[in-house]
């Protein structure tokens, strides 16, 4: 019996095509890209070996620091925003709407499936000032304020981006966290209520600790996604004004394809990959320490 399900040749036959495609189009390019980091130049200009110069450049390049700073700021704020708003929504679904939450859940979730480019163009128009103020500026006018060219200034462009990405993804994290909250046994919540816990203290002492695992995985998913932000930046601000909203992903893209420097581009991509790994490991370890403390 085991000889049939254990036949190695047939197994390789089934896994072969996928493994072949994956190796050729993902694994080898990753190693190849790693090799590029020791060269300068590109397809048109040709490659020259430069040793670790690209890494030295990266750490002294003000644009790279700028991109790194933006990436971190964006990732931290959006992660906190997504998970916090998602958690509040999940609490709303479980404890306020209860059985009736299905409709609201479905509606709040839908921006997740919309194409980022379309959503970005939509937000560009919603926050525009000229030639005709969009809803955001019209609202400010209505309250007597002066309109702002939101996407024309570094700070406000950053916040429009944050608002847009939280708008897009909060329903997703709400559903993810909702699944975690529903799994908490009713008896625990009921007995905590009988012990006099209600409202805020119920959430803080009972529900929050019990949903810690699903919160943790949400944070890891979120930070891994937001560190790689590309689509929404490209479509909403294209990194501007200036390079104020340029994340590492976009800086890498520009370096490689606009300036034709594959070596330095690969170095930036590698730094991003390392950053994702470091952050994930860091969160994992941080959470383990907390668990042992409690």
């Amino acid at each position, binding site marked *: 019996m*085991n000889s049939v399900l254990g036949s190695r040749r047939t197994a390789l036959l089934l896994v072969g095509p996928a493994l072949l495609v994956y190796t050729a189009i993902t694994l080898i390019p990753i190693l190849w890209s790693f090799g590029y980091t020791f060269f300068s130049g590109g397809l048109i200009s040709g490659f020259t070996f430069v040793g670790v110069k690209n890494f030295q450049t990266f750490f002294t390049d003000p644009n790279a620091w700028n991109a790194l700073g933006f990436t971190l700021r964006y990732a931290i704020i959006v992660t906190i925003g997504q998970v916090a708003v998602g958690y509040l929504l999940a609490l709303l679904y479980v404890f306020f709407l209860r059985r009736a939450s299905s409709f609201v859940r479905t509606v709040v979730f839908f921006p997740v499936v919309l194409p980022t480019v379309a959503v970005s163009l939509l937000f560009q128009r919603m926050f525009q000032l000229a030639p005709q103020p969009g*809803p955001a500026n019209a609202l400010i006018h209505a309250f007597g304020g002066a309109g702002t060219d939101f996407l024309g200034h570094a700070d406000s462009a950053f916040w429009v981006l944050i608002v847009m990405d939280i708008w897009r993804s909060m329903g997703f994290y709400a559903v993810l966290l909702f699944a975690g909250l529903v799994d908490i046994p009713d008896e625990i919540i009921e007995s905590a209520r009988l012990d006099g816990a209600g409202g805020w203290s119920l959430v803080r002492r009972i529900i929050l600790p019990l949903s810690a695992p699903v919160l943790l995985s949400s944070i890891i998913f*979120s930070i891994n996604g937001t560190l790689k932000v590309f689509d929404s930046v490209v479509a909403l601000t294209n990194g501007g004004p200036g390079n104020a909203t340029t994340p590492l992903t976009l800086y890498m893209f520009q370096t490689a394809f606009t300036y034709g420097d594959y070596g330095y581009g690969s170095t930036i991509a590698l730094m991003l990959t390392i950053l994702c790994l470091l952050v994930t490991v860091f969160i994992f370890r941080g959470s383990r320490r907390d668990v042992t403390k409690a």
Partner: protein
Amino acid sequence: MTAVIDLGRDAAIERPAKDRNRAVRLLRRLPMNLVVVLLLIIEIYPLVWILLGSFKTQDEFLNDPFWTLPRSWDVGNYASAFSTGNLGHYILNSILTVFPALFLTLAIGVAAAFALEVLVWKGRGTILLLFLAGIMVPGQMVLLPLFSIYFNLGLTGTLWPLIITYTASGLPLTVFMVATYFRAVPREMFEAATLDGAGVIRQFWSIGVPVVRNAIFTVGLVQFFFLWNDLLIALTFTNSEDLRTIQVGLLNFTGQYGQIQYGPLFAAICVSIFGTLLLYLFLNQRVMKGLAAGSVKG
């Protein structure tokens, strides 16, 4: 027990006060209900706004405030988006790349997941891990070598780079998700089939695939959204206007007109948004479950 007693007392003694209680409860729930209503407005209003806008003329955009209704329900903007804006061509490119890639990634991904999860052989753990590693690596890490490869193979200028890259980029998540579903299938099913004399390929095709049919559909749906909404890969490998997918086309949409033509732009955004929205309307529970299961992709 206490609940039963409470209920009995309620009915017996406090019946006259019941209506008032309900009113009090409704009033207490009012602030939160307002929050829910506000939430729904925040979600839905932008779409209503863009839909109304897609019927407005350039003149209405420049001179009327944003909240006005269009003066006529003219579909001219949509016609312009398809003719001058070339939207139809972009959609066709998206269909021609996403669906073949989707089919390929599902076909080889499901086979691989079966081999890695159901079959027992040395080395399967390592290979499964190898696939999982691919989920975390940013796409930027593979773009440049791929560009070199396609350039040297002479594939640049066709849709092949997109199809190939999409197929590979969907694999890790497909293998991971389908393997998870296979794990839930009782092993006895396959063992019984073995006793009946079915070979591995036969088992894969006649038992494995039908049993996880629903899962394959869900995974396909999730991958469809990822591929259809992709911008990074499409932007990298579409070096001419002819090859643009709907996302790249939409990104460069205003360039087709010289100056921003709001009506056609809004119409194009609408086409892009309401296409995926329609799919979501019919399959929302499945999409939500699938995307939540695929959340490892970040």
